[in-house]
């Protein structure tokens, strides 16, 4: 399966999983000029920005580690745009990462809540 399809499949699985965890999905694939965020959801009263990473095999390491410095900065930037656009700065926010490994039978899903905070200016 192509990487685009893999990504799409992973997101579908992620959405289903998060709904089961009680998240309320608000946006999917929120796109801006600076980049995009896979899922924006509400977990009780916290606004959560979620990055989904899918892999076919665990060979190249846990998907969570694919969310590197550059990716994190991008997610932060897009999140700020979202908050400003929707005027939601009064909400508490959080960054989650969902990692999915599509093994033979059941997909391996791991949800990292509060995976990272914004790196302050040095």
């Amino acid at each position, binding site marked *: 399966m192509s990487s685009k399809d893999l990504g799409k499949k992973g997101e579908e699985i992620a959405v289903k999983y998060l709904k089961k965890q009680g998240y309320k999905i608000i946006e999917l694939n929120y796109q801006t000029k600076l980049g995009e965020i896979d899922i924006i959801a509400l977990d009780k009263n916290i606004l959560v920005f979620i990055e989904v990473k899918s892999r076919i095999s665990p060979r190249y390491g846990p998907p969570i580690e694919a969310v590197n410095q550059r990716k994190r900065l991008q997610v932060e930037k897009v999140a700020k745009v979202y908050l400003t656009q929707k005027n939601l700065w009064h909400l*508490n926010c*959080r960054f989650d990462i969902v990692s999915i490994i599509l093994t033979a039978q059941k997909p391996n899903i791991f949800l990292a809540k509060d995976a990272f*905070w*914004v790196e302050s200016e*040095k």
Partner: protein
Amino acid sequence: MLSKVYSSSIFGIDAYVVTVEVDLSPGLPSINIVGLPDTSIKESRDRVRVALKSSKFELSPQRITINLAPADLKKEGSLFDLPIAIGILAALEKVEKESLNNYLLVGELSLDGKLRPIKGALSIAISAKENNFKGIVLPFENSCEASIIPDLAVIPAKELAEVVKFLNKEIDISPCQADSEKIFVNHTHYDLDFAEIKGQKQAKRAIEVAAAGGHNVLMVGPPGSGKTMMAKHIPTILPELSLEEAIEITKIYSVTGLTSSYTPLISTRPFRSPHHTISDAGLVGGGPFPHPGEISLSHHGVLFLDELPEFARHTLESLRQPLEDGVITVSRANSSSTFPARFMFIAAMNPCPCGFLADPIKECTCHPSAIQKYFGKVSGPLLDRIDIQIEVSRIKSQDIEENTEFIESSISIRARVNKARQIQKERFKRRKNVFFNSQISQKDMSKFCAIDQDSKTILNKAMEKLGLSARAYYKILKVSRTIADLEESQEIKSYHILEAIQYRNLDRQRWL
């Protein structure tokens, strides 16, 4: 939600109160520390977050802003970990805000939530007392040092969770109480004794005179003649420290991180012997956040510079002012700190590059111009500050076998030094900033160092015959005054002058 926690930071060797303000707001989760923190304080972010987790406090994602007031002073150190963590908990209403007004909090945090020792605990305790705090909460290892300050509740803590319970009045931690007098007396003990030094009677005598009058010394001699050994023994014949002096020294050492729970109070005179490759900042103090240098670490003690010609000229130059004033002021762009630096300056060198110029047995292999160049390195204003020059020669074999029982001990020498110091105290009671004979100004010469006609004749003859300078003249008078004091003689007699002239060896030989 805003909370305030009081803490402290070090500037120079004193501490000042820092207010740690914490605000929690919605928005993207982050921790931001403002108020000119240095790198180690910026890293508090991560230590505090994990320490809170380890101590089973939940920190939900939110925008945390921490301000260290006053915001225009640069701050350094890892001691803000504890107040920041408590500030966050107070903002989350997990800690009662009331107790925060009574205590100053300091401490570094480990990732497991335990408290780690900090520097400058004594100065911080002094600052807490001066600012009317009821007490301070600090790491266990620093509590003994801080408890030297009376009327301050010094609360020793081992971990973050414990501090929280204490501030919430759920548990009680009894304050650490130290008997400063007792610690002082117990630790006033030197391992060395002058009785261990065999032979070298003249050198020992010269050192006794130097100790009595606060005179600086230059020892010239071949390698292995015992110059370093004698220098190390000097603190043992200096008068005992007073408690105030001990506290002053401890403050300096505490800020430099050289005190420990074993030595909460430094009660012996310091002996510092920096290597000749030391930098200017290392010697006199400085660095981006001004720290005390070797001269301050020798405060009320001895600074020994071995191999004097090997020191860089500009490094020695920086000693001039402190030798004159007894303090060193380090200035930065928007602040300056003054460190105390009143020490006895002892220098040692070889008589020539190979070391054996005046040696009766070994032959000197140096070219005369090399010898001149060698001495040339140390001529100048620094030598002006040296009142006593001793030639330390190789120890004779019969001296090595000398029976220790018959050699005078430090205690006995110190008794004489003490008496001479007492005389000086009385003499200078109306003079500000003059404590020793070595500090007598030219104006006061005729008042304190009057000599009779005989002595004048001898002195003038010596000046002529040996080609001594006017500078040397005054030095001889000052040293004679000390020699007379050691004998408890009010007048300076001619044989006092004769002895003092002996200590101008190097002038005599035109080496300097």
